[in-house]
């Protein structure tokens, strides 16, 4: 395809490969005249601007020269680092060799000539520069003259050796492309001589003895040091000979196709399989010199082309110089000529129009330039794709951080005999090593349930105090006595306090004058209560009576005096006495208050009944104006809102401590959140961290996320990991507490988790990513990622088919058929294979279809309407059951039954159960709890209604109950045991010791899917009331009684972790199998395997204890166990394969492989 053209009769030189932009230098040719007989000469430089679609070349500089040229080259020598400059060297008809600076030609032209030599005696026809040393130039002229020039100094050129005899013209010189000191020269008589410049002599002469080779061109092979081609100008032998110096007696190959003598050749340096030749038959051919095949013929004019040259920089370009005076630039990549030809015709036509060349005075009709047959305007590219378009290497990313790479060995000139392996590599790219490590740790903790250890490790490795605080708080949520531990974390240690108090009691009591100091406050409170209890004790001792009624107090007061008088005077004392004597407490209290006798007033009002006490308290408090009054007021009136709403933010710890100690469970979370909200609004990072602690106490995952994200960078993987670790731990503690999964509700948390899953996916942790992806979201981004993760996992994820995340578009090649028709058979085919079947339009709106995608798994579970008879999980829970890891939830409670008790899910492994069997709780109040501090009567009134019957009756506010840090109030334990378990409650009332067995069969009926969190705190939405049970006790609630009980009853706790009876057979069978094998095994390797097996089977037993294995797997295990018992290991292995192929890999990966190993060993040993 023709790209540029200009009317010149000239020799040409491309700018070197390193030169940018691409220039073409043209020097007026010697021995050629055009019709004007103009004998001036010039050196011109044109720029090739290919962004300009026209054929014009842009003239950049021109220099008149005194002589016409026979040869011209553009060398790298003197080229700047910017890729411009170099030197133009021209050989003229009178023997002058001139060196030009092209930059000067293009600018001023004043100092364009930088060197000149008249050493040659005749026309300099041959020039070539050394490809290794750019200052070396070879030239050839008449009389066998060959000079080697140093462009630094033209004064003393070297010769390659003695002149060849007889003296001849040198028509061409050429440097070897591989060995820098080898030069070849050729002359029209057909002889070629190879010179070794180190030896300074010719080392070989090439001639085919035909005497018809008239060398017009000679070139070394670009890649093979010993090969060169010679082109013959003789019409009788219009061939190119390829010689190899190793067999220099006859040509290796002869390229025959031209019909007349060859004028010029050019060998592509970019692809040694491309050799151009132009000949007197008007053709320009491109050869593959290695095969001798003509792979391209340039569509040319009907004129001889005396010079053809590849462009060194742009390998697809070549230029030709023809005797009709045109310099043309072509591309060998084909293309259309139409547009350009049109423009040429227009140009010619318009030029004629304007000048009226024949002087007839008539306007000529527009010139009809004959189009060279329209069909031929499309020029095909080279038959053989050139090397420079053959991409040899590639690397592409794919989903899940995969990198697809391939490479091709560099092609060698000599074809290697053995086939090259054509491989593509799939690699996993991970960039976030620390992130992945921490994610793995988190995942391990989540799966194993070892939250305490995890938190503890976090505390140890915390980088900052704030971080450590947060982890300490998170840890407490998993511990017993959470409330007390929270207090301790806030700096209120019970033990220390007691010490302080005892110390303090030795001293006189100093009223605190500077605001609410928390420790003092606590001391005071404690002192108050201690004093009071001291009194009580004193009374008890004195009276040897357990009763501590107010009357006793009163009666005891005068004890100090053996005899006392009852004043009945008219002063205050007397009036009080009188009022008391008639039982007018109210009057007596009023009198006391009036007189400032607050203590008496309070004492009296205690005897006077609740109402009076309340009134008295109010009156007292309204009169008190000191700093602790607010706290006392709050304690007495249980008005904690005031505290959290109006305390100094610096006192957040104290406020939180008060909440932990006193607040009602149903208020606790909200109050914590209020406090947290205030801190958060303050906006500083410190406050936000404190707010986070509040949210951790309240168990408010969403607020924690929002608050955290305010000040911490969550965009980086590690930043996100920081957040997710905390969120997951908090959620886990709430789930443990509630015994159900917590769904992600808040958009910000969903966003963070999605982002987290995205990073995990990008790092290749596909299955882990899946577990974090919010399940209940229909956001396009999330559903899409889920779909992609699902399919990307291949068979490992079977059974988790998410709904299609996008509408399938029917792009059928057949005539479009109704989707319903094509879908049905297709689904069958695709089910085992690739779920992204085309034209699954109909399927997109449907829920997951386990029957289609896991045809062999859990047959009992296929119909959502069929309750499996002996299955732990209801059909709706099939999906979560297949997925072992943590944050997965069944579809939003389709079969939700408000009055049914919880599915007794396995207790989290390893941790102490915070919830002992309710039946073991004593009906007494909690020893050690701060209840004594409570005014008992008040307290009882506040939460009197029994709570264990039916759904939780909200206490006035209707607010969800409790937070993890909320203290349990007195009625709780009592209420929890109060009604005897009846009917549906038996699910959770069953002692764990009898978990499994017959009870299991009932479970599906009793199952209640976990409710999603809809309120900001843990708790249960009013519209979906959850059965009240022990699980509602917040984690921070005082659990002393239960702890004590658990400590007293270690047996129960062990039993709780026992393998269900019906699965014990698995353990006994497999254990005995391992033992038998161990006895029989001889070699240490097998023994080691078996030792490992004994350990690994522990995972299986753990899973059995947790009852976390799906029905399908359990059935399989039992089948295997039967096979093992009957020593039919072959059958056992078959069943094993079935189970493995139909189950979620991660669910069984811990133990199934080792089971197979054991069976294989057993089979081999024949035990």
């Amino acid at each position, binding site marked *: 395809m023709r790209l540029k053209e200009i009317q010149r009769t000239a020799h040409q030189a491309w700018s070197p490969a390193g030169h940018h932009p691409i220039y073409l230098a043209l020097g007026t040719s010697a021995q050629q005249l055009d019709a004007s007989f103009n004998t001036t000469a010039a050196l011109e430089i044109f720029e090739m601007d290919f962004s300009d679609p026209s054929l014009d070349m842009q003239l950049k500089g021109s220099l008149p020269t005194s002589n016409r040229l026979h040869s011209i080259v553009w060398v790298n020598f003197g080229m700047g680092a910017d890729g411009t400059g170099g030197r133009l060297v021209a050989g003229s008809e009178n023997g002058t060799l001139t060196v030009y600076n092209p930059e000067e030609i293009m600018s001023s032209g004043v100092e364009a000539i930088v060197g000149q030599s008249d050493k040659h005696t005749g026309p300099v026809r041959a020039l070539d520069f050394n490809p290794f040393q750019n200052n070396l130039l070879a030239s050839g002229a008449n009389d066998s003259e060959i000079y080697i020039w140093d462009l630094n100094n033209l004064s003393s050129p070297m010769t390659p050796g003695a002149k060849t005899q007889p003296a001849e013209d040198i028509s061409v010189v050429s440097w070897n492309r591989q060995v820098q000191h080898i030069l070849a020269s050729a002359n029209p008589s057909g002889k070629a001589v190879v010179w070794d410049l180190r030896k300074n002599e010719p080392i070989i002469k090439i001639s085919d003895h035909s005497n018809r080779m008239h060398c017009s061109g000679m070139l070394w092979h670009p890649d093979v040091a010993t090969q060169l081609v010679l082109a013959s100008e003789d019409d009788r032998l219009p061939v190119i000979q390829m010689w190899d110096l190793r067999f220099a007696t006859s040509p290796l190959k002869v390229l025959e196709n031209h019909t007349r003598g060859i004028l010029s050749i050019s060998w592509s340096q970019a692809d040694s399989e491309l050799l151009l030749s132009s000949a007197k038959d008007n053709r320009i051919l491109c050869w593959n010199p290695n095969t001798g095949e003509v792979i391209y013929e340039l569509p040319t004019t009907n004129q001889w082309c005396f010079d053809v040259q590849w462009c060194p920089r742009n390998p697809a370009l070549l230029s030709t110089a023809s005797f009709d005076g045109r310099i043309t630039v072509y591309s060998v990549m084909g293309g259309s000529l139409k547009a350009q030809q049109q423009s040429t015709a227009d140009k010619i036509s318009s030029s004629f129009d304007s000048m009226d060349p024949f002087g007839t005075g008539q306007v000529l009709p527009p010139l009809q330039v004959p189009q060279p047959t329209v069909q031929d305007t499309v020029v095909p590219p080279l038959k053989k*794709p050139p090397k420079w378009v053959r991409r040899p290497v590639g690397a592409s990313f794919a989903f899940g951080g995969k990198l697809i790479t391939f490479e091709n060995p560099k092609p060698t000139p000599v074809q290697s005999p053995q086939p090259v392996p054509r491989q593509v590599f799939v690699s996993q790219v991970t960039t976030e090593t620390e992130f992945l490590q921490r994610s793995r740790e988190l995942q391990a903790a989540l799966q194993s349930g070892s939250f305490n250890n995890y938190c503890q490790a976090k505390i140890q490795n915390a980088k900052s105090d704030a971080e450590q605080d947060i982890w300490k708080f998170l840890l407490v949520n998993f511990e017993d006595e959470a409330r007390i531990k929270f207090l301790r974390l806030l700096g209120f240690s019970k033990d220390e306090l007691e010490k302080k108090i005892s110390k303090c009691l030795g001293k006189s009591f100093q009223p605190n004058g500077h605001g609410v100091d928390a420790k003092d406050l606590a001391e005071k409170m404690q002192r108050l209560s201690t004093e009071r209890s001291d009194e009580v004790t004193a009374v008890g001792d004195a009276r040897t009576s357990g009763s501590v009624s107010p009357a006793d107090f009163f009666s005891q007061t005068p004890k100090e005096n053996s005899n006392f008088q009852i004043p009945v005077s008219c002063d205050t004392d007397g009036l009080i006495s009188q009022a008391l004597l008639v039982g007018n407490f109210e009057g007596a209290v009023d009198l006391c208050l009036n007189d400032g006798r607050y203590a008496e007033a309070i004492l009296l009002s205690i005897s006077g009944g609740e109402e009076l006490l309340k009134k008295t308290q109010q009156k007292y408090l309204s009169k008190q104006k000191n700093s602790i009054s607010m706290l006392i007021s709050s304690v007495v009136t249980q008005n904690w809102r005031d505290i959290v709403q109006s305390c100094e933010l610096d006192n957040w710890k104290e406020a939180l401590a008060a909440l932990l100690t006193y607040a009602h469970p149903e208020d606790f979370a909200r109050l914590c959140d209020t406090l947290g909200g205030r801190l958060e609004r303050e906006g500083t990072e410190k406050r936000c961290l404190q707010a986070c602690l509040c949210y951790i106490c309240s168990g408010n995952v969403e607020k924690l996320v929002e608050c955290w994200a305010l000040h911490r960078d969550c965009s980086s993987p590690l930043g996100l990991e920081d957040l997710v670790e905390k969120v997951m731990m908090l959620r886990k503690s709430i789930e443990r507490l509630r015994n159900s999964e917590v769904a992600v509700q808040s958009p910000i948390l969903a966003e963070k988790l999605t982002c987290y899953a995205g990073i995990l996916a990008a790092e290749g942790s596909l299955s882990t990513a899946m577990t974090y992806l919010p399940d209940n979201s229909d956001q396009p981004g999330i559903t899409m990622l889920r779909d992609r993760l699902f399919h*990307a996992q291949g068979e490992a994820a079977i059974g988790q088919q998410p709904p299609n995340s996008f509408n399938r578009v029917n792009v059928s090649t057949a005539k479009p058929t109704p989707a319903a028709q094509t879908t049905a058979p297709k689904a069958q085919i695709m089910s085992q294979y690739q779920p992204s079947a085309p034209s699954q339009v109909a399927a997109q709106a449907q829920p997951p279809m386990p029957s289609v995608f896991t045809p062999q798994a859990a047959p009992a579970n296929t119909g959502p309407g069929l309750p499996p008879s002996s299955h732990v999980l209801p059909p709706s829970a099939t999906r979560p059951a297949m997925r072992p890891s943590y944050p997965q939830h069944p579809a939003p409670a389709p079969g939700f039954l408000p009055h049914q008790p919880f599915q007794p899910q396995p207790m989290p492994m390893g941790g102490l159960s915070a919830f002992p069997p309710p039946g073991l709780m004593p009906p007494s109040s909690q020893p050690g709890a701060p209840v004594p501090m409570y005014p008992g009567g008040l307290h009882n009134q506040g939460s009197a209604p029994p709570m264990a019957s039916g759904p939780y009756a909200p206490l006035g506010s209707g607010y969800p109950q409790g937070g993890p840090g909320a203290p349990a109030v007195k009625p709780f334990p009592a209420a929890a045991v109060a009604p005897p378990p009846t009917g549906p409650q038996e699910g959770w009332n069953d002692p764990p010791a009898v978990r499994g067995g017959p009870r299991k069969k009932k479970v599906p009926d009793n199952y209640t899917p976990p409710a999603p969190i809809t309120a900001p705190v843990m708790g249960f939405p009013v519209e979906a009331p959850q059965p009240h049970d022990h699980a509602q006790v917040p984690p921070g609630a005082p659990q002393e009684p239960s702890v004590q009980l658990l400590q007293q009853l270690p047996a129960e706790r062990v039993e709780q972790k026992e393998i269900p009876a019906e699965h014990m057979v698995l353990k006994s069978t497999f254990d005995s199998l391992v033992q038998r094998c161990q006895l029989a095994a001889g070699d240490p390797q097998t023994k080691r395997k078996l030792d490992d097996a004994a350990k690994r089977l522990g995972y299986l037993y753990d899973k059995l204890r947790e009852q976390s294995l799906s029905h399908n797997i359990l059935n399989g295990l039992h089948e295997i166990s039967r096979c093992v018992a009957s020593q039919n290991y072959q059958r056992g292995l078959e069943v094993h394969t079935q189970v493995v192929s139909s189950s979620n890999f991660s669910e069984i990966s811990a133990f199934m492989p080792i089971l197979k190993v054991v069976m294989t060993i057993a089979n081999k040993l024949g035990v």
Partner: protein
Amino acid sequence: MVSVINTVDTSHEDMIHDAQMDYYGTRLATCSSDRTVKIFDVRNGGQILVADLRGHEGPVWQVAWAHPMFGNILASCSYDRKVIIWKEENGAWDKMYEYTGHESSVNSVCWGPYDFGLILACGSSDGAISLLTFTGDQQWDVKKISNAHTIGCNAVSWAPAVVPGSLIDQPSGQKPNYVKRFVSGGCDNLVKLWKEEDGQWKEDQKLEAHSDWVRDVGWAPSIGLPTSTIASCSQDGRVFIWTCDDPAGNTWTAKLLHKFNDVVWHVSWSITGNILAVSGGDNKVTLWKESMDGQWACISDVSKGQGAVSTITDTQQNEQ
């Protein structure tokens, strides 16, 4: 860290020129100078030859998977001037459409974002870029940008689907008014951006920085930020990262990622758009990541087949 997890022996009889995973990363398509396209199921580290597609009469340069919502569709382009769109029907792969509208080697094919429907851009050595749009009922609409790059177009890559003016959040509900854009690179050393306006494709931007053929261009996936990012690599050994922050898309700034000593053939963005894989003529693959301060650093050299990795944190080390 880069570790080889699967080695697929393609049994191609000549040079491999492209290897692309499908949307899910479960199928691998390869193409070669042996004129074939092969599809492998590579799930779970396996390699099952699913299809051996024959139909091209020259080396096949590139393959491209369509989004799975359209079914299993693969496009391939070849030196034979043809673009073939292959489709799987009932488990069997077959030609769906053959486009012969180019006059020279078709060097690059790229599917547009699925939001635009089934649309394929093809860049050819004849200098033109074709846009093939599936209009249903086996019909393909063809638009051609003639002389997009003189001497030839080497690469095309689509911009992610974003709605102008609301680059981050777009109201759901109404059909968004996408502006279709793509980038191309060619033998005129230019990177060009194209935009569809009123159904016509127009040159939007011309980015000049390379001093030799632009071998490949890659428009980075959108990561929710209103910044557009393009990587281009060239015969001149340079890789540039072009970024544009203004919503109108008019101001592009170039940053030199690195100057390699050999031709750079290919650039590929990770799915999340934060890592760039660069493959060069020295058979080396390097991975690059932008640091917080906006500097691009080589994070690893991938020695293929060995799984060996040397992590390079200092960019200077890689200057060689």
